[in-house]
């Protein structure tokens, strides 16, 4: 009988796995540590997990090679990448590769780790629910329809290319849902530069956890939606229209868009 556990954590640094185990256990989650991808695959043969935390840079199999291995074996457990080398490429790849849900840059606090894990677990649940309701297991949710011409960065954020060359960006309904709503947004200033895959805003949930919203497009902020800042509930209610966050001037739309899904 395969045992169902909450988390599988894979990292070649025992110090990291130890502290992750400690934090997750104290939150009441069941967790198993693995120190390389092969060991993790052995665990996966015997157990079932709700979420996998995986380091990107590991000897032998890297995090992304491990992902391929998973999909080859037909395992659909969502994966959260961890990395001490948080380049834009790693971030974007983590958010857009099939089977991979999110990423968390090292080093992180216990709260940050728990926030990401819980958000991803909820997200996974929501996706399972919508799947069982007969909807495709991808991207957005059913209750707030995401318009078809919106580009999405994983389950996190969206970008809408406007006819005048600017783009609006915002947070997706699934991310809002998985974070259990927004109490407050901390946004950047007009004139600042944003990078795809790097946090562009911090969202505080009603429970006080802080979620970083990864930016879908690189560019310079032209306008900030004041309404999103003054009434965060607006973003929750209407994330795709009145709840946009920034209007930006994309700096490299052609190469950025190929990572995004419509």
């Amino acid at each position: 009988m395969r045992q169902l556990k909450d988390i599988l954590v894979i990292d070649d640094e025992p110090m990291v796995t130890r502290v992750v185990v400690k934090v997750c256990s104290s939150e009441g989650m069941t967790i198993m540590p693995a120190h390389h991808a092969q060991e993790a695959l052995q665990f996966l043969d015997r157990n079932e997990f709700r979420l996998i935390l995986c380091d990107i840079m590991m000897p032998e199999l890297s995090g992304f090679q491990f992902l391929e291995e998973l999909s080859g074996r037909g395992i659909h457990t969502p994966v959260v990448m961890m990395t001490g080398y948080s380049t834009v490429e790693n971030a974007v790849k983590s958010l857009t590769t099939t089977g991979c849900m999110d990423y968390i840059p090292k080093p992180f606090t216990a709260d940050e780790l728990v926030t990401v894990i819980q958000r991803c677990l909820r997200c996974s649940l929501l996706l399972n629910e919508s799947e069982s309701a007969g909807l495709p297991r991808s991207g957005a949710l059913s209750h707030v329809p995401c318009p078809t011409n919106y580009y999405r960065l994983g389950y996190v954020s969206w970008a809408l290319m406007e006819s005048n060359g600017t783009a609006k960006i915002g947070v997706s309904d699934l991310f809002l849902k998985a974070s259990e709503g927004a109490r407050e947004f901390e946004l950047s200033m007009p004139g600042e530069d944003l990078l795809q895959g790097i946090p562009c805003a911090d969202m505080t949930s009603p429970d006080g956890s802080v979620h970083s919203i990864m930016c879908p497009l690189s560019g310079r902020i032209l306008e900030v939606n004041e309404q999103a800042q003054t009434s965060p509930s607006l973003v929750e209610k209407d994330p795709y229209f009145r709840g946009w966050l920034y209007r930006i001037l994309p700096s490299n739309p052609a190469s950025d868009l190929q990572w995004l899904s419509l």
Partner: protein
Amino acid sequence: MINNNIGLKLTFGVVLTILVAIGIFAFFNIQSEKQSLLTEVERHANQLSEAVKSDTEYDMLHNDRERIHESIHRIGNQESIDRVRVFNKSGEIIYSSDTAEIGTMVDQNAESCHRCHSAGEPLGRLDQQERTRIFRPNAESPRLLGIINPIYNSPTCWTAACHAHPDTQTVLGVLDVTIPLTDVDRNIRRSQFAMVILAISAILILSAIVGFMVRWWIDRPIRELLTGIKHVAGGNLGYRVKVKSEDELGMLANSFNNMTDSLAEARLQLFQSDKLASLGRLAAGVAHEINNPLTAVLTNSSYLLKRSQAQPETREDLQVIVSETIRCREIVKSLLDFARQTVPKKRKADINEIISRAAKVIENQLSNRQVDLEMDLDTTLPKVTVDANQIQQVFINLMVNASDAIGENRGSIKITSKAINLSPDGVLQIKRALCRKRHDLVDRKIQIDGKPAISMRYRRKKKTGLIHLNPMYGSTEHKLNGMPDIDAEFELMCPDCSASLIADEEVCPKCESPIYAFEVPLKGLVNGCLKEGCGWHRWEQVDSAWNDEYVEVRVTDDGCGIPEEQLPKLFEPFATTKGQKGTGLGLAVTWGIIDNHNGTISVESEVGAGTTFIIRIPVGQ
């Protein structure tokens, strides 16, 4: 060798031209002189011949042979005459100054007969030219000029008492006078010699002058330029070409100097950014290694912080661990950002708060070393848009440096903050100022407040002199040296080339006086009014880009100070003044952070007295 030297080529070309011109001139001159001397001798011989003829005519009519003999002999024996003879139509010599040949026959092919008889048929009449001949009887003898004078038959001859000639004869005989050309030839040789000497000396003198001018005006400046180019190619960008002339080569040298100055400036910046880039790559490599241990520290400490509800002391300590580890994370992140050239994560923040936070971090370290920290913060400071973590890092850096400078002795660090209004006036130093012909007006020999001044020459009516402007933009502390009033007759010009420095078609908007104008390379025109008490000035590119509200923070210590020679290199990576103690990265990172915030960082220091770092960050962003 001539192929390698443009001066030699030019000199050679000009000398060749002079040689050909003078050669042609000398040749024709000698020819014409020769001709005129010969013509003169010919005329003289002809006159002589006519004189002999008329002298003997009477005696011939009277057939007085003795007198004729005597006359011919007398005349023919004169020094300037070679010989005089008369021969009859059949060629028999009747009279001659050389008595030995009387009665002999003249060969029809002889010089004297040749003229008339060369055509086979004897000629009746000959003009003077045809009667003259120049010949040399043998190789050793001098040249001779002979003139034949035919004695024509006339009524007096055939009616004369002797009846020697019938009236059917046309020519009775020929008077042949021969004179030596010794003197003439000597004169010709002398004048030929003089002409050759003249031509040679003219060629030599002209060549010397041309050679000297080419050397002075072309060869020397080109050599100097070449030396400059070699120096610059070898990497010595401080070399300046010393060509003072106003011509194209002078302008070329000036442009060359300007180019190397710009190049030196660009290289310095490139050097700095290159070093910072390699620093970034290094940081990126190190970041990954540091982040794993940091994860253990941060996650553990934050986990402990969450759990240790009961003990406030422990909580406080843990809080410091967590927040400092987060700061480490931000530093590593910012180094990674630096490696990929991104901008800091800026938010509105209170600089005083950041200073207090920074002070808290190193409080313990300072009190352990008996260093007092004094803060004089302006509470009305406007908020600035900065990356708080980066700016905090800057202050911590500066305070650690200050405490290192104080060393083992007791000392104090003072931090002051205040809002200031900065205009570019008195802050920006004009380091290069070009006239229309691109001469640099900045005169390193004249200094105002220790900085090289901008020199200009004025002229009004007959009064002229030099003035020196303060190179700090906007300053009115000039050295005007009794300059006259500025009016329509007032002129201002470049001391090197006298090009006008008065702006065209524009006057001071404040007092309507003429204004000066010069160019700062790559940074546009600077205008200003020199009228007493006006002080109007404009530097469009700078004025428009300048933001005048700043927050200024000064970090002052009373430590050992920094030697003057180390100041220019202070912000370069790996330029530590702490020997083995420092990495040499702190101030480079600091510089990069402040630069990313469009701020400025400067340093004032005196060895033994202490150092002040001044940071200015623009408010309105």
